[in-house]
């Protein structure tokens, strides 16, 4: 099998990479597990990011910086603070090992379909995305909230090369949970929850495009998050949480599941994950 490519380049600097990406029909190539399978018909040139030194995980002050070319297995193996468990759990749930060895964090948040798993976990952790834009005249660094990045990708408005994502290092706990039809399917719905000094954050995601072509983008469940800041006493938080989660989550249906099913499933996953995290962390958000 072949891709109909005219050029393959492996630039050594970001300025060169951005200049090469400005050519018509050029695309950034990370692991290639998406681009090499679904490369669009106008793809003529790939600009391989492997020589730009974008892989690796490091502590940077109050943040953990994850290089865009870090593979999902690298994320699982990284010595992350215990509070960032959701990231390793989401990365380890991705397909098979050979795919996890190649799929990168940057690639995962730069493709226009099925942004679940690591993307959901990053949204649940309120990640920031670091981009390089510009060209031969200079490289500019831009920071974006993960939700904006995912939205830009889904709407075709994304630009620049993702160089890294940053997540807060002071998250007290986090977790990730997905439900899928079988072990080899993408998640029908997935959920990430985190708790830290800025409160509890819940994100839910799922797979595929809805009937209207809208993407089931990971969504921040703001009302559910607010409810957990002041939860009703005893066990009644579960019913209350289900009610707000069902009310606020989008109902995107696709070839895998109906919209109503996905929304109900996501609400159930939210409750199960919050309960498991609270039980594991002494009941305190």
């Amino acid at each position, binding site marked *: *099998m*072949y*891709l*109909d*490519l*005219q*050029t*393959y380049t*492996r630039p050594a600097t970001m300025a060169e990479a951005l200049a090469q990406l400005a050519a018509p029909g050029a695309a950034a*190539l990370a692991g*290639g*597990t998406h681009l*090499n*399978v679904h490369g669009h018909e106008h793809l003529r040139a*790939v600009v*391989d990011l*492997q020589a730009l030194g974008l892989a690796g995980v490091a502590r940077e002050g109050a943040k953990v910086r994850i290089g865009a070319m870090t593979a999902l*297995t690298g994320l699982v193996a990284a010595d992350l603070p215990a509070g960032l468990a959701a990231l390793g759990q989401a990365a380890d749930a991705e*397909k*098979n*090992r*050979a*795919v996890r*060895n*190649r799929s990168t964090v940057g690639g995962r948040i730069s493709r226009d379909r099925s942004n679940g798993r690591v993307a959901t976990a990053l949204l649940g952790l309120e990640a920031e995305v670091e981009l390089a834009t510009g060209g031969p005249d200079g490289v500019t660094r831009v920071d974006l909230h993960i939700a904006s990045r995912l939205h830009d990708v889904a709407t075709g408005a994304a630009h620049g090369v993702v160089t890294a994502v940053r997540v807060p290092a002071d998250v007290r706990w986090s977790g990730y949970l997905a439900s899928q039809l079988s*072990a*080899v399917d993408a998640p029908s719905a997935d959920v990430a929850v985190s708790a830290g000094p800025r409160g509890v954050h819940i994100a839910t995601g799922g797979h595929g495009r809805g009937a209207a072509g809208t993407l089931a983008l990971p969504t921040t469940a703001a009302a559910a998050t607010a409810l957990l800041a002041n939860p009703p006493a005893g066990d009644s938080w579960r019913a209350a949480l289900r009610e707000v989660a069902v009310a606020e989550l989008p109902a995107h249906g696709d070839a895998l599941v109906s919209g109503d099913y996905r929304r109900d499933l996501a609400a159930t996953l939210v409750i199960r994950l919050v309960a498991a995290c609270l039980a594991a962390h002494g009941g305190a958000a």
Partner: protein
Amino acid sequence: MIQFEATVNGRPVRWDIPAGEFLTETLRSHGLIGTKRGCESGDCGACAVLLDGVEVNSCVLLAAQASGHDIVTIEGIGDARAPHPIQEAFVDAGAVQCGFCTPGMVVATHALLADNAAPTRDDARHALAGHLCRCTGYVKCLDAVELAAERTAAAKGGA
């Protein structure tokens, strides 16, 4: 055409290839036909090889991406004249029927044992996930991983 330079099964190679050629094709067209063409979409594991010691599906990897790296195919692990203990374990455990999935399974087992000399049954399942076999029902493949791990440990203990 671009130039592909890499180490393949310990041997430096320099081949001219089309920019858009996948690694499976490059390897097979140079005689390394143990790397199988299956789904060609990253789903079945038949085309697995080691890239710098890490398992990858060569059907979703441009050969150009692998240029400059170290590649090991099933032929570099062992062959009929000098089989690797993992290959012997697959035969002895009855994990080989038609054999189409076997090179990929052996490559995956090799990568697993390099990281984890004493895998549990669950570790083996996790490592072989993504390797589809239409013949064996998988139980014997998992048995083969256990047998390979036992034999490797025994060989090391006895050395």
